[in-house]
């Protein structure tokens, strides 16, 4: 039984939702699940408080202050979190729940980021990328950290 439970867990870890709407611009693509210290979201020029439960959208920029950190779950089950003094842009996340294919591109222009990749990264090496000012990461899976001080 533990074996089969584990198999079920692995099979379903990537399977996913909210996604019917994820392909349209500005659609909700994830949710803040943790927030400590100063966390805010820049959306179309407005500055919104980054509180736990806030849904994030395509083109949102998530920022933290000197004492801040924040974690989010995305529609394809990827997990992302940033440390203090960080700037993370959610440039693009398209995800089709039926085919389970999509594209997820984000940029860390400052600070630190940890990632556990989700369903999208399983499909091809180009499907998930993270940019920094000087490098591009092609994510094949699954867990890594990135820092940039450029």
């Amino acid at each position, binding site marked *: 039984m533990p074996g089969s439970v584990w198999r079920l867990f692995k099979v*379903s870890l990537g399977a996913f939702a909210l996604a019917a709407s994820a392909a349209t611009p500005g659609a909700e693509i994830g949710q803040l699940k943790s927030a400590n210290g100063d966390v805010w979201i820049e959306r179309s020029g407005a500055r919104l408080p980054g509180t736990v439960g806030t849904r994030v959208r395509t083109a949102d920029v998530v920022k933290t202050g000197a004492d801040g950190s924040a974690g989010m779950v995305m529609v394809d089950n990827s997990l992302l979190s940033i440390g203090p003094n960080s700037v993370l842009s959610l440039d693009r996340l398209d995800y089709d729940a039926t085919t389970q294919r999509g594209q997820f591109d984000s940029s860390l222009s400052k600070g630190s980021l940890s990632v556990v990749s989700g369903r999208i990264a399983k499909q091809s090496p180009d499907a998930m990328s993270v940019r920094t000012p000087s490098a591009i990461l092609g994510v094949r899976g699954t867990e890594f950290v990135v820092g940039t001080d450029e």
Partner: protein
Amino acid sequence: MNEPAARLRRALCAVATVSLLGACAQKGTTVVLLPSQDGASTAVAVKQGQKEVVLGQPYAAVRPSTQGLEPYKSNPQEVDAKFGPALAALPSRPASFTLYFVEGKDEFSAESKSLVDAVFSEIAKRPVPDVVVIGHTDTVGGDRTNDALALQRAETVRAELIRRGVAADSIAAIGRGKRELLVPTADGVAEPRNRRVEILVR
């Protein structure tokens, strides 16, 4: 810093001694591949200009140097020192539960009913839970029938969770039909383990 400026700085640093240009101390991007919690194989390719380094083993890493990306081996202590706050903010992994169904119907099998309680205790553990309900069928019947049945099963579970108090706007239902068999079979095979609904609590 933008790419041309970074390149210029690297070029300057390459010809200067560190004592002349203390600012040359390694600004740039650091990446460390971590062990994957589920044991799945894992890799990240890091590209800078024409140079690409593929990190394929736990703690394989790159850091900035005067020559651009420098591969090295990191360790848990360094990762904790540099990335502790980010890692501490990582949300809990999604928890998965699987309910099984009576053939061709949207009724729970008897042993699945007690699992619903386990789902609820998982939901209670999370500060802002959201739930994804994914319906699956076996390979008896065509795609259209199975897609409809899969969604109907997912909706049944979703309705039941809402009835028991989970907020409706935090639960999505999806039907995957017979596209993702738990137990691979030929078409037209009745297989109870494929007639299931996965509940992901995130």
